[in-house]
């Protein structure tokens, strides 16, 4: 007996809808949301964002395979893809070839206890479906760009991405979220990424939503055996931002989570990461760095779970924060749960200010005070920037950092 193609999706959506109505929006009584109130999101009446009617540009940042979404809707593109690589509209694939998607979609990101994942699953319009066949080595990055174009009333989009990198494949994926204008909008993306055995996957997420945006994102990664997965999360925009990055590791895999967040004014950002060492001999390295200015607030919560049989786990977590004003607040918390007995797990968090001796030293060599300050801030972020292997992205990031630092000072 074959089910109708849509029934799988409809069942999924119905379950998620039900689950969300049970869960409701999280409150600050939930441990995972202690420092982030989503009341502004819960209180706003959003309407679904409409597709762009006029021609809109696809941001091209150098060689690669670009895909663009406007208000969560697929923007058709022409691109020659190498053999063994598929980039398509998820909504389209769900209609035409649901069997490609069914084994993976919503299998990793859990609606069960994550309200915003349930909300996304119940409501997503579209997103990217990316498949890289076994053994394919991609020569240039895949760019998934999500542009919010808010209308007269607050809009919402729930981009849903599914990235399946089969065994022995190698690829770089860059997700970018951006928006403009003075209107409030809400982006609630979920990305599920399956990295097959022995694959090498670099994932970048650049979040540069507008100053009025709410952005609550979940990335759920399934890391295969002997697989190398690296995530780089670069977060600058938004009024209220929450990023969840969750990875489940298989035997002998290596997982790197790099993060950089820069918040100014009244921005709030919350980064929750979770690394599940489910199997032995896996290594994880995590470095998140934050820069806070103005009245901004930031949260870092790094969870590492080492399961009972995950012997020889090597996990290292570091969170460093540079606080540039007296009114900025950072809450940082490691959350280690270690059930195996032969492991190495380290964690550390620092909160510091700019070194006045360093500023004076630079001044004493002729460098102006503002430039000296920016140089030291940039130096703080430098090791994250240096780890970015996509040159055009690294350059864009350098520019963004400087622009934002200048903007922060002139406010």
């Amino acid at each position: 007996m074959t089910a109708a193609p849509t029934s799988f999706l409809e069942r999924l959506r119905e379950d998620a809808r039900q689950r969300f109505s049970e869960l409701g929006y999280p409150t600050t009584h939930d441990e995972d949301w202690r420092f982030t109130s989503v009341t502004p999101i819960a209180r706003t009446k959003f309407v679904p964002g409409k597709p762009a009617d006029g021609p809109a540009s696809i941001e091209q940042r150098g060689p690669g395979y670009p895909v663009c979404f406007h208000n969560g809707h697929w923007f058709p593109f022409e691109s020659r893809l190498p053999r063994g690589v598929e980039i398509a509209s998820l909504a389209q694939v769900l209609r035409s070839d649901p069997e490609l998607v069914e084994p993976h979609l919503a299998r990793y990101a859990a609606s069960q206890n994550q309200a915003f994942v349930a909300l996304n699953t119940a409501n997503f319009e579209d997103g990217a479906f990316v498949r890289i066949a076994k053994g394919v080595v991609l020569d240039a990055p895949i760019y998934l760009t999500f542009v919010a174009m808010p209308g007269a009333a607050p809009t919402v989009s729930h981009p849903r991405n599914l990235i399946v990198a089969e065994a022995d494949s190698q690829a770089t994926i860059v997700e970018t979220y951006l928006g403009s204008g003075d209107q409030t909008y809400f982006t609630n993306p979920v990305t599920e990424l399956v990295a097959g055995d022995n694959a090498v996957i670099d994932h970048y997420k650049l979040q540069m939503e507008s100053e009025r945006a709410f952005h609550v994102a979940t990335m759920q990664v399934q890391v295969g055996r002997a697989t190398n997965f690296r995530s780089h999360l670069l977060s600058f925009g938004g009024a209220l931002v929450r990023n969840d990055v969750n990875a489940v590791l298989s035997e002998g895999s290596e997982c790197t989570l790099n993060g950089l967040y820069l918040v100014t004014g009244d921005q709030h950002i919350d980064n929750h990461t979770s690394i599940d060492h489910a199997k032995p001999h896996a290594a994880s390295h995590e470095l998140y760095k934050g820069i806070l200015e103005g009245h901004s607030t930031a949260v870092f919560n790094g969870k590492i779970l080492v399961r009972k049989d995950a012997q020889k786990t090597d996990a290292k977590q570091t969170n460093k924060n540079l606080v540039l004003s007296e009114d900025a607040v950072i809450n940082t918390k490691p959350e280690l749960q270690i059930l195996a007995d032969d492991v190495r797990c380290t964690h550390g968090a620092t909160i510091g200010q700019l070194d006045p001796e360093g500023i004076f030293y630079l001044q004493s060599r002729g460098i102006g005070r503002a430039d000296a300050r920016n140089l030291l801030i940039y130096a703080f972020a430098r090791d994250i920037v240096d780890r970015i292997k996509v040159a055009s992205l690294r350059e864009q990031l350098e520019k963004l950092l400087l622009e934002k630092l200048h903007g922060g000072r002139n406010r």
Partner: protein
Amino acid sequence: MSLLEIKNLHANVAGREILKGIDLSIDAGEVHAIMGPNGSGKSTLAQVLAGRDLYQVTDGRVLYNEKNLLELSPEDRAREGIFMAFQYPVEIPGVSNLYFLKAALNTIRKHQGLPDLDAMDFLALVKEKMALMEMDQSLLNRAVNTGFSGGEKKRNEIFQMAVLEPKLAILDETDSGLDIDALKIVANGVNSLRSPARAMIVVTHYQRLLNYIVPDFVHVLAEGRIVKSGGKELALELEESGYVGIEEVVESA
């Protein structure tokens, strides 16, 4: 008119008076040594001249090149040609020595109305000065002073000075903590920069450095005042008698 004219300079740190009326006049081409026991105010004088905001000037004035030095920001002092070699050079992780020095040099050149030095010319200049200081070129790509040994840090200071070519160089205990070989290299670097257009203030606790950098004048600082001035022979005198005699002068004053 002297290059630097200090009159009745008083300065506090955290409400405590450290400099209690310094008078000093320095002409271009001269090397002045400032000696004195610990806590006499030598380093404070150097830092006040460089513009460190930890110190509050409460009285007196400082003219540099006929400008009121105390009104200038530290960066403007540097752009006007003042350079202080730090007693404790600051580590700046994440900023390469090369980038730092290029930014500094081009800022100063801009102030002087000169065009930026291009990458090739800059590298040539830097290599020449590194050879002078017998420094390993790998230090260029390392972060400023980060992980440098004490000797490397002090050499890096004089190297910067050689590249930036100041009008007035202030060496704040550049000799402290150096072994004799490093001391000779540092002194050699400093001596090569002596010129009729440039003045130097060499702050030191020990006479040893002055065997290698021979000063035109020696001043003895004690309890925030210059209590004795003379030629280079004054340094030798101090070597004989130590600062004991000096402290008596202060008490009887």
